[in-house]
């Protein structure tokens, strides 16, 4: 079910504060974050984030098209390395 319009998008306030701080000082340091559930708002455009995926941080430069998605959508949490036996078959 989608989120109620009344509430507006969910944005991590501390993260937004960090973005605004950078905006004021005109610096563009990657921001490390764990809040994968935070919606990407227009203020984030042009900033770089390091989004945690449970193990490492995934670098993301936000562009306009990404607005409305969640940060977590850009930091995959699973890595598929192929099924067992796949290598053996290839070697043969």
């Amino acid at each position, binding site marked *: 079910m989608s989120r109620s319009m009344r509430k507006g998008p969910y944005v991590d306030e501390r993260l937004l504060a960090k973005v605004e701080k950078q905006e004021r000082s005109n610096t563009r340091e990657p921001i490390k974050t764990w809040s994968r559930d935070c919606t990407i708002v227009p203020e984030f455009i042009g900033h770089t984030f390091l989004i945690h995926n449970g193990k490492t941080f995934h670098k993301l430069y936000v*562009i306009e*098209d*990404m607005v409305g*998605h969640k940060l*977590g*959508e*850009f930091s*995959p949490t699973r890595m598929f390395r192929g*099924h067992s*036996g796949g290598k053996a078959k290839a070697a043969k």
Partner: protein
Amino acid sequence: MPRILGVDIPNDKPTHISLRYIYGIGPSLALRLCEQARVDPQRRAKELSDDDISRIAGILDRDYTVEGPLRRQTQQFIARLKDIGCYRGSRHRRSLPVRGQRTRTNARTRKGPRKTVAGKKGVKEMRG
């Protein structure tokens, strides 16, 4: 048989049914079109006058995206998802279910016909 928007030739079913042969027209839009064009939805498609047809085509042209443009639009939306490198985009790229469905079994619509892997454990093992 009548032709609407070039290629589509609905047959001798009731108008609201045959309109659904056009890509992008479903049950509710078909009925709404009949109402807007003041055509009896129950009348057979072959009984439509040229005037009826041009009215329906006019409304479609003006207010709705169907057929080619609609297909293109959908492709663009998917291309955008792939482009920005989000999770949904990667699911499209791998032609796996996009909306969080299980893939351990089923998901055949997205994955296509089963590709049997030689030497894989039997069905009994999978149930265990």
